[in-house]
């Protein structure tokens, strides 16, 4: 906010008035733009839920019916009937929870090694790990498929869950950044008392790192829930389908039943939105850490 040099002489009353007026105008402008943009961003989601609650004859009229009347809740059970979405959600949860456990366990140990133990090869290995983030999944997916097929893992959740017990570059990086911020003096004091490195990790650092661990768990959960390429390669049996695969299957078989499709999409989205509202702070902090410390 700036004050024009001319207006200062006119008297303090006028100055505060013009300044306040200007402030209101610019604030109104900002909110105007933000509200307009906000409507553009939120409208598709609103339309998804709105369509999911409409009978089909209300879906295709103009001017559009914004809020269905009455709510056609029946689309939800109907959608669930055509495809076993609840079963798919259980499968997705199995994948997500397994992968979250593996990721949190492995990445916290590895991140501790990279953050708090000084050893000669550390710098090079850390650089190597960051470099793997640039490796596209497309490069590794074919040999991995061949490998997992040869040991009979294709057609199970093993190829999706087991690798997460061996670390993930992005998540290790995130945790390492957090571990670095914990004062070294805490570890030093424990060394003096003769504590082993693992004890320091387990008793001192991990309890302090709970928020970062929560972020990692949350990100991994979101990633697995959203994952499509992994499941489509490895889960070739419809009884193992995750929600993403099931939904894709549903589109290709019932491509024009918009009420049912939107109900199914809402079911696939709602758990994540609820999760977001429950863990908003962890979420926003986590995103900020990962994006900033590049």
């Amino acid at each position, binding site marked *: 906010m*700036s004050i024009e040099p001319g207006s200062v002489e006119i008297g303090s009353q006028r100055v505060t008035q013009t300044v306040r007026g200007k402030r209101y105008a610019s604030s109104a402008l900002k909110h105007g733009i*933000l509200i307009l943009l*906000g409507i553009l*961003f*939120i409208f*598709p*989601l609103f*339309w*998804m839920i709105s*369509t999911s609650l409409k009978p089909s004859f209300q879906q*295709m009229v103009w001017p*559009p019916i914004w809020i269905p009347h009455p709510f056609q809740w029946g689309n939800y059970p109907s959608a669930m009937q055509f495809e076993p979405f609840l079963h798919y959600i259980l499968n997705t949860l199995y994948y997500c929870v397994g992968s979250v456990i593996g990721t949190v366990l*492995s990445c916290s140990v*590895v991140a501790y*090694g990279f953050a708090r*133990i000084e*050893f*000669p090869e550390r710098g090079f*290995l850390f650089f190597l*790990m960051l470099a*793997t983030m*640039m*490796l*596209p999944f*497309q*490069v*590794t*997916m*074919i*040999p991995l*498929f*061949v*490998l997992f*097929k040869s040991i009979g893992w294709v057609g199970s959740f093993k190829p999706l869950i087991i690798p997460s017990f061996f*670390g993930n*570059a992005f998540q290790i990086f995130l945790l390492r950044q957090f571990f670095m911020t914990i004062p070294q003096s805490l570890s030093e004091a424990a060394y003096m008392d003769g504590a082993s*490195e693992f004890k320091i990790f387990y008793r001192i650092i991990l309890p302090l790192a709970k928020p970062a661990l929560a972020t990692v768990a949350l990100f991994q959960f979101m990633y697995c*829930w959203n994952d*499509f*390429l992994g499941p489509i*390669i490895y889960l070739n049996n419809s009884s193992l389908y995750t929600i*993403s*695969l099931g*939904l894709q299957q549903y*589109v290709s078989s019932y491509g024009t039943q*918009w009420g049912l499709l*939107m109900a*199914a*999409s*809402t079911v*696939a989205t709602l758990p*994540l939105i609820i999760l*977001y509202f429950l863990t908003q702070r962890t979420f*926003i902090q986590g*995103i*900020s850490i*990962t*994006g*900033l410390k*590049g």
Partner: protein
Amino acid sequence: MSYSNEVVALQKSRKRIHVNRARVRRNRITGWLFISPWVIGFLAFALFPFLASLYYSFTNYDIISSPSWIGLQNYSKLMHDPIFWQSLYNTLYYTIFSVPLSTIVALAIALLLNMNVRGRTIYRTVFYLPAIVPFVASSVLWIWLFNPSFGFIDALLRAIGLPAPGWLYSVHWVKPSFILMSLWGVGQTVVIYLAGLQGVAKELYEAAIIEGANAWQRAVKITIPMISPVILFNVIMGLIGSFQFFTQAYVMTQGGPDNASMFFALYLYQQAFQFLHLGYASAMAWLLFVLILIVTVLVYRGSAKWVYYGSDQ
């Protein structure tokens, strides 16, 4: 300082060196132990497949029979494959528009939100929510929004007297449709930029105001340079992601119409898992890797001109 004192000091320092050496050796063992899960994972799930796919790219391989060496044939076949070139063109088209546009939109929204607006948390949630929607669900949603007969967007365009372009069914509009969709998902980047903006020292702005800089000048001369490392990081991640653009195209168009949305990763997937041309697909994968590497290095090199690392970095 007397002689005996010096001896004591020397002995002490020797002891310290000894202790330090023992500690270095112990640290080396414990350090490797701690990172061993990643080392195993790196060897098994990154290095091995990385080299194996290079090998496969020189072979004819369909998973049923063992790979047979054919030298550079996959690569020379790719050079004469029009769909390969089309997929490369489509992917570059998507990247060239989607990455800069998302950066601009995300920055603009973040700058607006950073101007001390009331209800920032609510706005931030509004912009972030679309980014949470799983790709398949948002794909289904946008198929419906883009539907040429009953979709909301075309109905709205017709109502205000504009022609409806047919979006996903049009050779010319299918890529812009995906770009538009990608802009809808910029929420994550907005949150990152906003966090970056809040870290810019307030004193800089105060000084600029005294010098008489207006809001636009402050944004261009202070804010953007101060968060340029964050922008660089997100642009690079965005580039890597958009070269691998897959799920939405798979769900929404399967590459159609007339291969106008056949993206690189989609064609690669089809070659690998629908036609079982694993060698051919591996050659594509390696080209993708080299392409990503070159573009990343170029952007990083070029960034020296516009990225400002503060004196503390």
